[in-house]
């Protein structure tokens, strides 16, 4: 992490920075994969207390259905692709594209059903966890290419240790996978723009197709590619270089993506093999006209437009470690100053050194742009703009490198090799410690965690910020002797399918049974969400008590209650 591949110094591209931009050393790929592997192991190790989220229940069921189709495909391909068989299997959860769920299905079939290595929950979560590891690896490699190993390392760990990223990285959902595929596609686009070989253009187009088949966040990639290509052209025009020669790689990648991407999506999604246009229109309509769910923000429950435009920036500041944000800001300033200098002086041959940060900045803007409209739903919390976070982390890496360089410039006595190594390690530890501590303290209630800037979870609760959603808190349920045998449990916001998987996997006491009837339950769970408070009051009256049997909390803030029936006086 001593910047062995050369760093830009944050103040602008240097000769070593350009060399870094030209190649990624093989060793860095291995370092990146090593970081990713460590991350994936950490995710596996911390997975179980995070109960299966509502959406995971739906996707796990879909994965099992798709898994059956995959078996038919292996044994009788002609039958598998028939309309009746395709529709019978792929109608399930067809409002979401298939790629990630297909990975869940393959993992379920192999790791659970065939080899029995993992339970159902862990088998469907495994692909997301592995993809999260690959995302960390990608960020390391990309950060290293642009600004050196120190920057790459800080970027990778900053992303991995964003508490909300860490939480979602566990889940058999689409948010982290699409974040990874989104980042990978942008990486491929930049690589194609740098040197437009057929292979790189093909990779970009294929990855765009995979992104389309992952989640609708991919719809924001074409605007990003168009804006980036235009920006490259403007840059070249300003510096007096040939626009066509310098921007044609990006243009080719964009064109190829627009042609090949939809075909890849079609190929990966059996549901749209027939009635393609109608089914695609249904898919688009589902997301464009998605129903509005509830979300608490600053003490108000929002359930319909207009939504507060401050939601995305405030929630980012409240949930992303402040040090990471400050580093990202420093990174933007450092790269911005350097780019402005180049443009003011009209220095030629410098786009290559600035291309990636330009695209990162545009990516962040594109990913946040939907929340400039007050009609964009906010119910997903921070996960809906999580595709921006790898780019924020990359800027944080650049910012860290600029801090390191500034320290060396200011106190040159620290520069000699041994001291530089120590400085690098100490600085990395210092800059990353807040994120790592925040992530560690957020477990297992990631959607309830907030950074000290807003007073942590207690400060956020006082401000009236959401304390969690999807009912994942049920994973922390441990029933002791105070709950009698064969308890009937009202599981509140936890999906029945999610409970059943956790129960069958042995995560929960085996004599416990879920009941849809709050009134008949022996134990009523209450996941705290502002708009669901009415269910707690139902429990008070039904069970004859207002005293929680148990409170699950983060830093003293209740996130789930358990109520048991009051004993007769």
């Amino acid at each position, binding site marked *: 992490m001593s910047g062995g591949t050369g760093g830009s110094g944050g103040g602008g591209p240097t000769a070593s920075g350009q060399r870094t931009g030209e190649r990624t050393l093989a060793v860095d790929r291995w370092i990146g994969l090593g970081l990713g592997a460590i991350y994936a192991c950490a995710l596996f190790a911390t997975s179980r207390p995070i109960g299966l989220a509502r959406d995971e229940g739906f996707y796990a069921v879909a994965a099992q259905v798709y898994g059956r189709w995959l078996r038919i495909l292996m044994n009788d391909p002609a039958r598998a692709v028939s309309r009746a068989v395709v529709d019978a299997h792929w109608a399930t959860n067809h409002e979401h594209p298939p790629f990630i769920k297909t990975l869940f299905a393959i993992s379920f079939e192999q790791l659970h059903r065939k080899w029995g290595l993992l339970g159902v929950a862990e088998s469907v979560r495994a692909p997301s966890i592995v993809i999260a590891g690959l995302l960390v690896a990608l960020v390391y490699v990309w950060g290293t290419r642009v600004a050196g190993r120190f920057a790459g390392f800080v970027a990778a760990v900053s992303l991995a240790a964003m508490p909300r990223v860490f939480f979602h990285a566990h889940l058999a959902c689409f948010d982290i996978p699409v974040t990874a595929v989104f980042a990978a596609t942008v990486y491929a686009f930049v690589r194609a723009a740098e040197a437009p070989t057929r292979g790189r253009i093909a990779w970009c187009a294929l990855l765009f197709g995979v992104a389309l088949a992952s989640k609708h966040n991919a719809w924001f990639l074409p605007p990003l590619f168009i804006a980036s290509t235009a920006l490259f052209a403007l840059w070249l025009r300003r510096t007096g270089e040939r626009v066509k020669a310098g921007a044609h790689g990006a243009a080719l990648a964009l064109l190829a993506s627009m042609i090949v991407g939809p075909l890849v999506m079609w190929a990966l999604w059996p549901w749209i093999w027939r009635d393609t246009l109608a089914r695609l229109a249904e898919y688009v309509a589902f997301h464009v006209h998605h129903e509005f769910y509830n979300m608490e923000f600053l003490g108000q429950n929002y359930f319909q437009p207009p939504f507060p435009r401050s939601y995305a920036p405030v929630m980012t500041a409240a949930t992303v470690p402040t040090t990471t944000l400050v580093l990202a800001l420093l990174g933007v300033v450092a790269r911005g100053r350097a780019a402005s200098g180049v443009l003011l002086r009209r220095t030629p041959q410098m786009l290559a050194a600035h291309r990636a940060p330009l695209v990162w900045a545009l990516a962040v803007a594109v990913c946040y742009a939907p929340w400039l409209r007050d009609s964009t739903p906010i119910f997903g919390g921070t996960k809906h703009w999580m595709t921006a976070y790898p780019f924020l982390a990359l800027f944080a890496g650049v910012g860290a490198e600029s801090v390191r360089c500034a320290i060396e410039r200011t106190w040159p006595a620290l520069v000699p090799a041994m001291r530089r190594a120590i400085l690098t390690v100490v600085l990395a530890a210092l800059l990353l410690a807040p994120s790592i501590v925040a992530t560690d303290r957020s477990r297992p209630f990631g959607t309830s965690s907030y950074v000290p800037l807003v007073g942590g979870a207690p400060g956020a609760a006082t401000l009236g910020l959401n304390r969690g959603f999807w009912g994942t808190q049920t994973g922390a349920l441990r029933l002791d002797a105070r709950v009698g045998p064969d308890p009937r449990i009202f599981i509140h916001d936890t999906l029945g399918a999610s409970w059943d998987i956790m129960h069958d996997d042995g995560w929960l006491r085996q004599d416990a049974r879920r009941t849809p009837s709050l009134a008949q339950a022996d134990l009523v769970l209450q996941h705290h969400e502002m708009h669901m408070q009415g269910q707690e009051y139902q429990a008070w009256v039904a069970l004859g008590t207002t005293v929680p049997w148990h409170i699950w909390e983060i830093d*003293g803030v209740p996130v789930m209650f358990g109520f048991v029936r009051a004993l007769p006086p």
Partner: protein
Amino acid sequence: MRRVLSIAAAVVAPCVAIAELGGHVAVARGVPTEAEWDRLGETLSVNRDPGDLLVVAPRWAEPHARRRVDMPIAQLGRADVSRFAHATEIGLHGARSEELAAFTERSAVAIGPFVVRTLDNPAPDLVVFDFLEAFGPSTRVSGTVPAVRCTWSDREPVLAGGLGGHPTFPSSRFDCLGGPFMTAALTVIADERFLPRRCIWAHPFERGDKVLAFDQVPVGRARRVVGHHGMYWMIERDRTGADIEIEARIDGITIGKAVHHDGDGWSGFTFDLPRAPPDARATVELAVRTSDYQHRHYCFEATLR
């Protein structure tokens, strides 16, 4: 200038990191321990008048207090604080309750991370008669069109709506024609801020009035009827339902009407009582009606003051 910027770049992020780490320590150390909550509970159970209102600030910390101190459902689901002459406020790390802003401080004592304040209401509006407390088998509940009489039972099956559903109908309630929603019962609803409001569930009938009659009400000792009404917020927030009217009658004579519009949330009403001798008692009827009874999860509370 360049050197200043360089120094700034060198120190800002490390300083922010150190401050953020300090913030984590501060947040962690600020969490009250179980022992501190227990100590608070023990102190309050000895020193507090059970009739005094107990409020926890910030509100999210209240469930911890409920595990240590008796907080009856009537207090938790209070209509407002005006009826209480005194209050005890538990403030975590100095937090104050906006609800008690008008109360004056009589004493304050620090117990661990808490400040326990004894507060006086400078202008208490004391309750002479509470219709919620009086609601029970002696209440008469009836419908006018058609003329029906609801019957009291202590053995009805408890019904609760569950996720997104209706408030709980307890086993002790009036059974009326038209299904469980037509019941009359004491329950707790979530208001527009999702706060608990204890009230009498009085879903109006399709036609005519639903009349709740209370006999031997000491009207001579009070000057007015003070009440609140609303619905489970999820029902009324779309603002598509019909208005609901509540009418108060003393021995058959109307003294006031109030209308609840969808979107009003938990709102108050006041009717002046006619002058009467101090020992006067009367039958008070509260009649509820609407033009369209679909999804009218109406709930009200009323007192004589």
